[in-house]
């Protein structure tokens, strides 16, 4: 397998505060990587780096072998914990958004035959995530789980090379979360996706991931807590998994 993402000696510093240090990481294409770690350890900063929302202070990030574009782009899709969908568009228009931006640079709207084709594609994507019956519903009227389904459909329609999930199921009820696990696992297989998921739920990380990465500080100075940054402290490849159903299977 080839590396879709390669971080070489990446540091992120805000003035004297070191957030991430000496991060060396290669992500295989098609992997489902879970990133875990205590809160405030820089998981979100890590995701912002990959998204291109911020640039490393030192080091390089390569995407598909080339230097990563330092701003968000179509090849890296994302689903946040909240606010991922547009409140003023119904479900169908939310999914159409990317297609319309690609198809019409000035108006960002499609008409007639091109709109019908895009509409069919978007409706098919929505039925894949189980929202076939909610095409004209606005996000405010959708439950938390359905909003996340919508956010996933909206991202996947652009066929991103990599999908970033930032605690996507953190705000959901346990039952709904279980459904979402099934959904994302199915989509990962069906679309051959590469997924990077930040989560604070270790069970979820092992259940879904083909690889689990733990970020934490290797060293701590109690007098100067910002002196040392976080890096990869554990890296579990779960190669034999394809996929493992629950963490219990790991020890079986």
């Amino acid at each position: 397998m080839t590396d879709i993402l390669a971080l070489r000696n990446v540091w992120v510093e805000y003035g004297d505060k070191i957030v991430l240090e000496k991060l060396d990481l290669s992500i295989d294409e098609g992997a489902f990587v879970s990133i875990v770690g205590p809160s405030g350890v820089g998981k979100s900063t890590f995701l912002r780096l990959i998204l291109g929302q911020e640039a490393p202070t030192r080091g390089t990030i390569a995407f598909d072998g080339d230097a990563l574009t330092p701003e968000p782009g179509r090849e890296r899709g994302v689903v946040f914990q909240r606010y991922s969908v547009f409140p003023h568009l119904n479900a169908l228009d939310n999914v159409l958004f990317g297609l319309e931006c690609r198809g019409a640079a000035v108006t960002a709207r499609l008409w007639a035959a091109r709109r019908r084709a895009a509409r069919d594609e978007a409706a098919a994507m929505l039925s894949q995530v189980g929202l076939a019956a909610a095409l004209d519903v606005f996000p405010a009227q959708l439950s938390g789980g359905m909003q996340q389904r919508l956010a996933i459909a909206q991202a996947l329609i652009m066929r991103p090379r990599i999908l970033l999930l930032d605690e996507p199921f953190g705000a959901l009820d346990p039952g709904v979360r279980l459904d979402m696990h099934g959904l994302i696992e199915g989509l990962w297989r069906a679309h051959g996706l590469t997924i990077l998921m930040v989560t604070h739920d270790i069970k979820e990380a092992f259940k879904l991931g083909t690889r689990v990465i733990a970020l934490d500080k290797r060293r701590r100075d109690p007098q100067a807590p910002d002196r040392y940054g976080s890096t990869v402290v554990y890296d579990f490849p779960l190669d034999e998994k394809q996929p493992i159903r629950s963490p219990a299977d790991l020890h079986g």
Partner: protein
Amino acid sequence: MRRLLNIRPARGARLALGLAPLIAIALVYVIAASAWHAANPNEKLLPTVGAMVREMKVMAIDTDPQTGAIPLWRDTGASLGRLGIGLAIATSTTLVLGLAIGVLPLVRAGLGPLVGTIAVIPPISVLPILFITLGLGETAKIALIVFGVTPFMIRDLSSHVGAIPEEQIVKAQTLGASTWQIALRVALPQALPRLIECLRLSLGPAWVFLISAEAIASDVGLGYRIFLVRRYLAMDIILPYVAWIALLAVTLDLALSTANRRLFPWAHTARAG
């Protein structure tokens, strides 16, 4: 006994409670006016309802031989025209600048402080400047309304646009949207309901600036009329005119808030759990 703050009036009771003070004031006025007139038939401060109706017939039904028009309608037309043009300019300026400042950090850095500075200048204090530079015609009055409400509207709209969650903006970029496409399809639609709300809140100040400008230099308009007849202590014209202005203001306010709810239902639905 339930706590006072837990007692909520039903729909009918709410209406009755709302009307009660209005009716009470009207009653007190009618009683006071007739008592006053019983003592002094030439009393001018509290005209009777009959006197106001008589005067308003002259203003609102009879044609003024000098202008060939009915004064009330002529005044209303002139004032609403100024108000409409002023608010149209203010609203369109706000839409363009508010969006640009809200979406683009570069524009925010360049224009934000300027707008903030202009916003703290009391508009009435620049009225002499407007009269000197623009003359005493329509332009100065419209300019006062524009100057008075636009900076506030721009600040409000740009901060609203700036408060769109960053997640949405990043998400739009990951869907391939350009700056222009994000402004057009993400920021603009979410700014519109706020713009209308902002316009609604600006109606009050706009009326103040309109009446002030008309009071100082004009020959037609609602503000002109009440300040003109003030010289004759004509309370029997001033009071109905003020009531008419209040009615116009309430109607505009209601029309805007209704339009907002109709046009942007998504902005007014409570978030589901």
